[in-house]
């Protein structure tokens, strides 16, 4: 069910991606709506990461497919996007530099950069570590830094590729809380995860991928309780959640 006031931000039609012999995405048709929290679930190698990259614009789908971005209303500009990866790649420089880099690449003047950087670091609780070497931070801190880096760009869409998969439980909670707070402020989320509990907690919509195919896509409550799901999706849920009936 689509609410009438939701805007379409990115539409994918029949997206196809191959890496050599591997058929990573097979004809995926999907539309991303403003304000939603789309969770991508599926086994390893199912195409979640590829789909994220295509939606983000890092990867171009085959010519037979189409990917379209639409202007935001009422802002009347194309949506800005940022992405957070499972293992963040941080440059071997200071925490602050890693955040300002993205801003500098956008051509922002120095004063504004500094202000945004400070705000972003405070938001994720890393302001006191601004001058530390980014690579010296713990896993959880590094992921928070990645979030700060993304947040500083004031994105309209935040793509996340299994952002908490490599973290210990307390870091997981911290990062999840941050992601949720971003979403609460109106950022559209697209997140892939292995953790179905996480998908249930954070998502508004769930898409299940298997071997590059978009098998099922439902509102979150529907996904987890509806017996109408395609057989394969049901099998997946059963495998991941043994107590699901």
């Amino acid at each position: 069910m689509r609410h009438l006031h939701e805007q379409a931000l990115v539409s994918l039609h029949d997206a196809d991606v191959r890496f050599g012999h591997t058929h990573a995405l097979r004809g995926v048709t999907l539309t991303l709506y403003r304000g939603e929290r789309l969770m991508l679930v599926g086994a390893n190698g199912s195409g979640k990461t590829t789909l994220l990259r295509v939606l983000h614009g890092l990867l171009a789908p085959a010519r037979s497919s189409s990917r379209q971005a639409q202007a935001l209303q009422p802002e009347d500009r194309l949506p800005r996007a940022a992405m957070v990866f499972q293992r963040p790649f941080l440059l071997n420089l200071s925490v602050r530099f890693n955040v300002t880099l993205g801003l500098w690449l956008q051509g922002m003047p120095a004063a504004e950069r500094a202000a945004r950087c400070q705000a972003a670091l405070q938001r994720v609780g890393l302001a006191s570590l601004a001058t530390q070497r980014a690579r010296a931070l713990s896993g959880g801190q590094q992921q928070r830094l990645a979030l700060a880096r993304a947040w500083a760009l004031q994105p309209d869409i935040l793509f996340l590729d299994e952002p908490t998969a490599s973290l210990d439980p307390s870091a997981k909670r911290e990062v999840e809380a941050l992601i949720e707070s971003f979403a609460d402020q109106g950022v559209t989320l697209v997140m892939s995860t292995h953790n179905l509990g996480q998908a249930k907690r954070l998502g508004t919509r769930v898409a299940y991928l298997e071997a590059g195919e978009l098998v099922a896509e439902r509102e979150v409550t529907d996904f987890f309780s509806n017996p109408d799901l395609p057989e394969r999706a049901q099998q997946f849920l059963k495998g991941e959640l043994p107590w699901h009936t």
Partner: protein
Amino acid sequence: MAYLKPGSTLRHGIAGAALLLAAAAVMGAGGAWAQASATSFIVMASTTSTEQSGLFKHLLPAFKAATGIDVRVVAVGTGQALATARRGDADIVFVHDGAAEQKFVAEGFATQRRDVMYNDFLLVGPKADPAGAKGNHIATALKKLSATTQPIISRGDKSGTHAAELRLWKDAGIEIAKARPAGYKECGCGMGPALNIGSSLNGYVLTDRGTWLNFKNRGDLVVLVQGDRSLFNQYGVMVVNPKVHPHVKADGAQSFADWVVSPAGQQAIDRFKIGGEQLFFANANQR
């Protein structure tokens, strides 16, 4: 989704800056170093054997004191020295191969050749002298050598020494090109390296006195033949013709040519000694 992409500006900026830096460095280095000599200088093409004898260390300061001109010596084989001058990369030539020098003048690369001095060649070989070359006449020595299988080291590098060596063999009735002795070896190298090889193989080498006196790696080698007139080695000086190479520093070069045949230059040559022995004999106005 459109991102602002100043990435290309960055790329162009860095590339531009780097190219500017590189260009500036090259020009700066070139300019600074080319002008590093506030004093005027000329480039002289001469031979390795002459430089290694130590003559220039003795002679050139005297010239500088007299005229204020620095002489930068590029020391290579005679063939290469003349080639360098033909290309206009030297202002003056100072070598010891009469025939090649006449050709140089005939081709117009110099207007004149002047005698300056001579030194002499020696035949060195193992103390035991298995070929029985020791004596007063080089032609006899070479004939004896050619009949044996003893190692004979030749420079084989188209140098003045090499040319002289081939002439001596010819005068002894042996055409190296057609019938070389059993032990004849060409190294395509300078006098010092040839002596190095001779020393390690315990063979016979025709060398100039200057290099021999400075050579420290003699092993078992001693002088076997010296004093034969045909072993004398004449040096000549030629200024590169400015009509052919207008950029040549003809005035400075002519200064040297004039000075080295003048009494002052000739005396400086005669005064140069190694271990009390005179090496070069000034003969500018004798022939």
